C-alpha cells in the first residue's frame, strides 16, 4: 500500500440530481476500497443524508470523495463543505429527532452513527465542513 490518501474526486452539490451523483460516486469509491456490501450501504446512506444537508441547509457546496489507507485497512473518506449559515447549536443539531427544517432530524445524528469517523467543523456565518470515514472490516 502506498500513500495515506488517494486523490479526491469532487462532486459539486447544487441540486437534487447532484445528491444522486454523490451517492453514486461514494458507491464507486467504496467498492474500490473493498468495503462489504453492508458497509457500502451505510456509507452511501450517510453520504446521501449529508449531501442533502449541504444542499438544503448549506445552500449547496461540494463533496470530495477519496480512498484512505491507514496501513492496515482501506476506507472511504468523504468531506462535505458549504459556505452556508453554519450551525449555531451543534449539540442540538446532533440530537436525534431535532430538525430546523422539515426533515426527520436523523440526517446528522444518523450519518454519524453509520460512519466510523465523523468530524464536524462549523462557525455561524462561515459555513460547515463535515468529514466522514468508513473503514473496510
Amino acid at each position, binding site marked *: 500500500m502506498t500513500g495515506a490518501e488517494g486523490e479526491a474526486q469532487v462532486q459539486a452539490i447544487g441540486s*437534487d*440530481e447532484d*445528491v*444522486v451523483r454523490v*451517492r*453514486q460516486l461514494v*458507491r464507486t469509491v467504496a467498492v474500490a476500497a473493498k468495503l462489504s*456490501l*453492508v458497509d*457500502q*450501504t*451505510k456509507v*452511501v*446512506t450517510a453520504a*446521501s*443524508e449529508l449531501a*442533502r444537508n449541504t444542499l438544503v441547509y448549506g445552500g449547496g457546496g461540494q463533496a470530495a470523495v477519496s480512498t484512505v489507507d491507514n496501513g492496515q485497512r482501506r476506507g472511504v473518506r468523504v468531506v462535505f463543505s458549504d459556505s452556508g449559515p453554519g450551525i449555531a447549536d451543534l449539540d442540538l443539531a446532533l440530537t*436525534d429527532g431535532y430538525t430546523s427544517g422539515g*426533515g*426527520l432530524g*436523523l*440526517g446528522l*445524528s*444518523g450519518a454519524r*452513527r*453509520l460512519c466510523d469517523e465523523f468530524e464536524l467543523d462549523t462557525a455561524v456565518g462561515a459555513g460547515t465542513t463535515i468529514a466522514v470515514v468508513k473503514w473496510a472490516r
Partner: protein
Amino acid sequence: MERVPILKIGSVLLVSIQVDMQDQMALQLQEDLGQRIVDTGAKGVIIDITGLDIVDSFVGRTLSTIASISRVLDAETIVVGMRPAVAITLVELGLSLDGIRTSLNVERGLELLARNAEPETVDDLDFLDEPETTSP
C-alpha cells in the same frame, strides 16, 4: 423528470422503484399514488423496493407519508423487497418506517392484502365507507 410507473393489478396498485430516485421524484410518486388510489378505488398499494440500494431518511419518510395518505384514502400500503443491507442500515440510521407494513416479496405482499381484505375490519376510518344516506 422521470416518473415511477404505477401498475394496477385487480384492486392493488403496484409500484416498482427501479432507479436511484431524486427527492423530487419521490415527492411526485407520493402525489401520483394518491391520485391513482382515488381514480381506481384501489384497496392496496405494494411498493417494491428491490431495486433500491439505499433508503435514506428522505425516502423513508416518503414511504411513511405514502402509507398515511393511502390509509386515509382507504388503501393499505405494503413495502416489499427490502434488501438485508438496507434493513440493517435503516435500523442503525434510526428510521422506524412508522405505519408501514412490510413483506419479503410481491407475492407475500399480495397474500397479506388478500387476507386483510376478507373480514371487513372495523377501524377508525370505517365511517368513510358508510353509504351516503344521511338524509332522512
